[in-house]
C-alpha cells in the first residue's frame, strides 16, 4: 500500500517553463477536450498514428520524462486489462482464431480490444499531460474563467473553482498524512497487508479515524484562516495573474486544428 501511494501521479504537476507549460490554461483545457473528442471520432487504426505523433510532439516539447508518463498509466492497468479482456472474448464476428474454455477469440475481438486499449491509453496520456504541465492554481483559474458565462444561470463558478483549488491543494498533504499515520500504526504492530477482505477493511480503522480527524481539523483551520482574512467568495475579487491568450496559444490551436482536420479526413480513407 505504501508502494501504491507512491505511484499516484494523476493530478500531479511537474513545474517547468516550456512552451506547453506556458500556454493559457483555458486554451489548454479546451484543446484537451477537443483532443478527447477527436479520439472518439477515430474509427481506424491509421488515425491513431496522428494521435501518437501529436502526443509524442507534446511530450517532447513539455520535457516531461517518458518514464513519468508510463508510471501514470500504472494505476489504470486493471481497467486497461479489463477493457482489453472483455473485448477480446465477447466480440462476435470475424475469423475464428482460438478458444480458451468456452470463450472464443475472433479476429474482430482482437482488433477491437487493441483499438479500445489504445484509445484508453491515449486518453489517459493526453489528460495527464494537461495536469502534469498546468499548476493546480492555473487549472482552476482556467476552469473558473471558462465557467463564468454560466454564472447568469446560477452556476457558482467561483465557489466551484475555490473548492477544486482547495481539494487539489490537499491531495499531497493527505497522502503524506496517510503515509505518516500508517507508519506510526505499523510501528505499533498494525498490519495493513495480510488477511482476507473483511479483516483488511477492519485493519484500516486505525488509519482512517486519525486521517478523518486530521482532515476535519485542517478544513476547520483553513476556514477560520480564510475568514480571518476577510474572504467572502468571488464578490469584487480581482486576480493577481490575468489570463491572456498569446501567439503561443494560437500556434497550439493551429496544431490541434490540423490534427482534427486530418482525423476527420481519415474517416474517409479506405484503411
Amino acid at each position, binding site marked *: 500500500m505504501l508502494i501504491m501511494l*507512491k505511484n499516484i501521479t494523476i493530478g500531479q504537476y511537474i513545474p517547468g517553463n516550456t512552451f506547453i507549460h506556458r500556454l493559457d490554461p483555458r486554451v489548454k483545457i479546451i484543446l484537451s477536450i477537443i483532443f478527447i473528442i477527436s479520439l472518439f471520432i477515430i474509427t481506424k487504426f491509421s488515425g491513431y498514428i496522428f494521435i501518437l505523433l501529436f502526443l509524442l510532439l507534446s511530450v517532447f516539447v513539455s520535457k516531461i520524462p517518458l518514464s513519468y508518463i508510463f*508510471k501514470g498509466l500504472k494505476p489504470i492497468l486493471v481497467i486497461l486489462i479489463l477493457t482489453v479482456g472483455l473485448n477480446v472474448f465477447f466480440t462476435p464476428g470475424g475469423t475464428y482464431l482460438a478458444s480458451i474454455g468456452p470463450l472464443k477469440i475472433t479476429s474482430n475481438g482482437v482488433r477491437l480490444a487493441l483499438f479500445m486499449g489504445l484509445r484508453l491509453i491515449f486518453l489517459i496520456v493526453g489528460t495527464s499531460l494537461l495536469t502534469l504541465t498546468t499548476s493546480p492554481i492555473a487549472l482552476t483559474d482556467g476552469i473558473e474563467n471558462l465557467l463564468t458565462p454560466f454564472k447568469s444561470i446560477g452556476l457558482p463558478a467561483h465557489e466551484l473553482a475555490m473548492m477544486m483549488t482547495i481539494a487539489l491543494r490537499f491531495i499531497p498533504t493527505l497522502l503524506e498524512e496517510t503515509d505518516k499515520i500508517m507508519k506510526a500504526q505499523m*510501528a*505499533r*504492530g*498494525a498490519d495493513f497487508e495480510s488477511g482476507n477482505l473483511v479483516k483488511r477493511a477492519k485493519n484500516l480503522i486505525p488509519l482512517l479515524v486519525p486521517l478523518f480527524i486530521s482532515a476535519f481539523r485542517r478544513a476547520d483551520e483553513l476556514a477560520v484562516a480564510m475568514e480571518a482574512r476577510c474572504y467572502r467568495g468571488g464578490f469584487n475579487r480581482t486576480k493577481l495573474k490575468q489570463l491572456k491568450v498569446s501567439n503561443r496559444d494560437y500556434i497550439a490551436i493551429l496544431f490541434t486544428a490540423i490534427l482534427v482536420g486530418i482525423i476527420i479526413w481519415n474517416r474517409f480513407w479506405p484503411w
Partner: protein
Amino acid sequence: MSIQVENISFVYNEGTPFESVALKDVSFTIDDNEFVGIIGHTGSGKSTLIQHLNGLLKPTSGRIIVNGIDITTKKDLKDIRKEVGIVFQYPEHQLFEETIYKDIAFGPSNLGLSDDEIEKRVYDAMRIVGLDIKIKDMSPFELSGGERRRVAIAGVLSMMPKILILDEPTAGLDPKGRDEILHQIKQIHQMYNMTTILVSHSMEDIAKLVNKIIVMHEGKVSLIGAPKEVFKHVEELEKIGLGVPQITYLVRELRKNGIDLPDDVLTVDEAKKYILEYLRGVDNA
C-alpha cells in the same frame, strides 16, 4: 539490544523529478542500554533516519543490523517492530480508539498477549507517563494536547520494546510539560534498561540526559561522541545552526577572561559547583 548502521543512504521519490536525498552515507553504532541523542536542524534527516531502525524505510544503500540481524534484507519485520518501538513526531495524531485504555492496548493486542497481560501493561504504561488510571475510559479526544501526547507515548511503551525511539517528544509542549516528559523518559531508560534514542533539536534537553550524541547535518553525521566531547566543537555546531547549552557559553566566556574552570561543563549545577570552588580558591589566596 544494539544497533549498527553501516553506510546507509536514502533518497525520497527516487527516479522522479521530486527526488530528494535525505541521508548520505550515515554510519554509527548504538550499544546495548545506551541513551543516545540525535540532534540536528530542521530537515537534517533525523526522522528519516529513525524510520530505518525498525524497517519502516529501507535504505537505498548500506545496511542496518539490529541485535545481530540484518533488517535491510529481512522480509518479515514483525519481530523487529516488536523490539524497536518508535514514538513518532506529534504522536497524538495517531490516536483512534474510543477510549484511552483501548488505544494504549492496541500495540500489545497486536502482539497477541493475553488480556491480563495487556491490562497490566496498559496500567503500567499509564502510570509511567503520569496518567491517572481513573481516566482510562475517557475518549482520548477529550484530553489536552499534552495529555494526548502521553497517551500516545504510553501506546508504544505498553509494547515493552527493547529499544525505544522518541522523535521530538517535547515539541510544542510548555516548559513544565517538557521537563516532566523528559524526566519520565529518563526513568523509563533506567527502570527497564531500554536502549533509548531521543531525537531533538534542543541541546539543553539532550545534554543532561544522554551519554552519546549524534549530530546530523544535511543528511550526514557531522559529530558523534559523548556530550562533553561534542560540545567542545562550539564553532562547528554554531555553523550548522545548533549552538550549545547556554551554560556552556557562560563557562566559555569566563574561561576566556582567565577564570580557571573545566572546559566541559554541561549543566547549571555543575557550573555552580565549579564557580563556587573557584571563588573559594580566590578567597583563600
